[in-house]
């Protein structure tokens, strides 16, 4: 193997490594990134902002999509306990489910997503929002 072939091989390996690294970085959510939270059903975005503060998620929430690095979209559903549930099951708590997705606005790739379902939510939407915030914080801190 001559020197020319060796340099070509080295270059190829380098390109592949850089590509892999770029893909890995693309999936990360760096701390202190700017995030835009899109409006959701039943104003769940407000609960999410409050949960981010309560759980100390290291992200900056911005209200202008153009200034953001990431966008959070999702949905939330809430069902109050029916009379039957109150009488038969003896539970007054609502049933909550929510799902959120974080998308990198530059690449358009979904970098993180999470869904939560609480059949007897003690604090309604607050519980599901805080669950989302906790898991997002874990994702940021894991640096994966």
């Amino acid at each position, binding site marked *: 193997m001559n020197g020319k072939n060796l340099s070509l091989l080295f270059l190829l390996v380098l390109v592949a490594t850089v590509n892999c690294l770029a893909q890995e970085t693309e999936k990360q959510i760096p701390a202190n990134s700017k995030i835009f939270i899109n409006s959701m*059903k039943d104003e769940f975005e407000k609960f999410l902002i409050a949960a981010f503060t309560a759980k100390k998620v290291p992200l900056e929430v911005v209200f202008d999509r153009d200034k953001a690095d990431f*966008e959070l*979209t*999702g*949905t939330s*559903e809430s*069902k109050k306990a*029916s*009379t*039957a*549930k109150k009488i*038969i*099951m003896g539970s007054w708590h609502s*049933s909550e*489910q929510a*799902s*959120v*997705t974080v*998308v990198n606005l530059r690449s*358009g*790739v*979904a970098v*993180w*997503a*999470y*869904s*939560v*379902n609480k*059949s007897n939510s003690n604090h309604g939407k607050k519980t599901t929002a805080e669950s989302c915030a906790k898991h997002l914080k874990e994702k940021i801190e894991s640096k994966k």
Partner: protein
Amino acid sequence: MYHRITFLFLLLAMFGMSGYAQTTPPATPTPSTAQTAPIVDKAAPSELSKDKISPGSKVYIAAINGYESFLTAAFVKKEVPIIVVNAREKADYQITGVSETVQASWAKMLFLGSEQSNELASIVMSNVKTGVVVWGYNVNKSNSWRGKQSSSESCAKHLKARIEGRK
């Protein structure tokens, strides 16, 4: 005594007639020459494409009344080897579908002691360039422990199996 027996007989006859009326199909009108029903093509559906879905493909999930978000979360949780993108133009494949939730009725709670919902979902994955359907899946969970999360994770599990060639 005879009055009571007659009354009971009458009641039974009423129930019987009511039951018969519910099970008897409505009389079909005689086809007229002016109104001819359209001929329905009953040919078997064409087979789904067996093309390999390569790992790392970019997938766009169309809006399914919020269910798309549950699907994305399920793909992350089940580690499905695809990349979800937010624009159709960037994608190799597109997922469309429908999802339905039926909450537990009081009868279900009383007789079965279950407050879990009934979840239905159906998703179809097609190649954006060719328009060929490459995969489809239906799920029905009559007692879904975690609502939409359960049905979406079932979809994700089966898509992963399809990509890995286990199905």
